[in-house]
């Protein structure tokens, strides 16, 4: 077994282009996931029971089914009822909704872990529930929430590789395209692994850096 270095050389820039798409998808899906996740997490802290039930059913469904099936649902099943996205947006939406469920749980847990006396003190000065959440509880919950939050986003980035099955031309798909022409699975899959590894490492260093810059309370 010898490595075909010519293929490696050809592949490096092609895979780099795929990496850019992977990053773009991760960024957009990540931002959406945070927005939806925070909204769901905060809504699940409301005292309006039906809302809490709906959100907990949603979270339960997302966590209880494979991401791949969720991707298929968005890309193949939704068009049947008239909701159509191109493959990139279908992928982004599936990833964002999947990750948002985990983020919602992180938010709910983080806010719930703030000491009870904080809520009581805020009540004692007459704050409304939403004010207590936004001015007292959330700011204190952000610090402990950050590590699980960045972990969710990093594993979402890894999960973008699943979008190759609906022909999103991201990193994995870019590699598969090379393999299908040159039939060099050993070199390309190895390269893919290295690309993902470097990407994920960079992201985790970045998130540890953010965490270290967050002031401790």
């Amino acid at each position, binding site marked *: 077994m010898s490595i075909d270095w010519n293929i490696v050389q050809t592949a490096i820039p092609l895979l780099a282009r795929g990496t850019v798409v992977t990053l773009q998808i991760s960024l957009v899906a990540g931002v959406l996931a945070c927005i939806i996740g925070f909204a769901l997490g905060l809504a699940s802290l409301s*005292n309006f029971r039906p809302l809490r039930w709906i959100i907990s059913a949603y979270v339960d469904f997302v966590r209880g089914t494979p991401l791949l099936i969720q991707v298929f649902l968005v890309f193949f099943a939704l068009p049947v009822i008239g909701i159509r996205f191109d493959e990139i947006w279908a992928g982004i939406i599936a990833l964002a909704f999947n990750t948002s469920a985990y983020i919602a749980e992180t938010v709910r847990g983080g806010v719930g872990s703030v*000491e009870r*006396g*904080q809520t*009581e*003190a*805020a*009540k*004692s*000065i*007459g*704050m*409304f*529930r939403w*004010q207590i959440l936004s*001015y*007292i509880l959330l*700011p*204190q919950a952000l610090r402990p929430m950050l590590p699980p939050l960045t972990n969710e986003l990093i594993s979402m980035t890894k999960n973008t590789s699943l979008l190759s099955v609906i022909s999103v031309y991201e990193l994995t798909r870019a590699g598969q395209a090379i393999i299908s022409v040159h039939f060099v699975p050993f070199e390309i899959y190895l390269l893919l692994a290295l690309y993902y590894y470097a990407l994920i490492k960079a992201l985790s260093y970045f998130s540890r850096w953010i965490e270290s810059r967050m002031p401790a*309370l």
Partner: protein
Amino acid sequence: MTAETFVPALRVEGLTKTFGTKTVLRDVDLDVRSGETVVVIGASGSGKTTLLRCVSHLELPTAGTVDVDGRPIGRVPVAGGWKNSSERQLAIQRRCIGFVFQRFNLFPHLTALDNVAIGLRKVRGFSAREARARAAEHLSKVFLSDHVAKRPHELSGGQQQRVAIARAIAMEPTIILFDEPTSALDPELVREVLDAIRLLATGGMTSVIVTHEMSFARQVANRVIYMDEGVIVEQGTPAELFGAPREPRTRRFLEHFTISNTGRPNEQH
């Protein structure tokens, strides 16, 4: 205001609280006049803290009513009676009651100044500038002008509790409830907190103070209340209650206190 229309700052009627099968407050009645300082004493588990928490509705009473300046707390009138306040209504009604907690409960992510200013801004609607100016003024009343920019963890327990007091008075409530304000403090820090409270009390603040500091109670109280097993056993001026307690239970409690300032009072009957 004539005698017939006299409205107390705080009126508590028939206040009862049960946790499961345990009755912690039994049918407590209490009026506090405007400007009055009422000190509540009693053994731990006698219901003092629960009384304050039920008055402020941090704990919802099982039965009974609370009115501040004649305005109901925790209930709203409906056709033919009353119904419980919504959470939002309660937040508004509660604004006339200040609360100082045993464990301070300052907001750790905010400076001393912002701990006081946040309520002025978000609840009372002052501009950021006005809120901060007022907050600084209130912090000076508890002698903390030099510490406005510090976070709670940079302050001693006594300083933290004084910030908490400033936070409460800044809202200009009708009445302030102090729940064992010095119990969580190191002994050498108790005095500065009591001095701050004493100063506010002589300045006309209306308050109910739960404390184990008997000499403080003697000095500052207009009226002392002794509670045991969820009821008010006896009340009177400090001279009456400390000098000549009528009830045997009160006597036993106070005797125990003069013997030992730290021990748990005898609860046998």
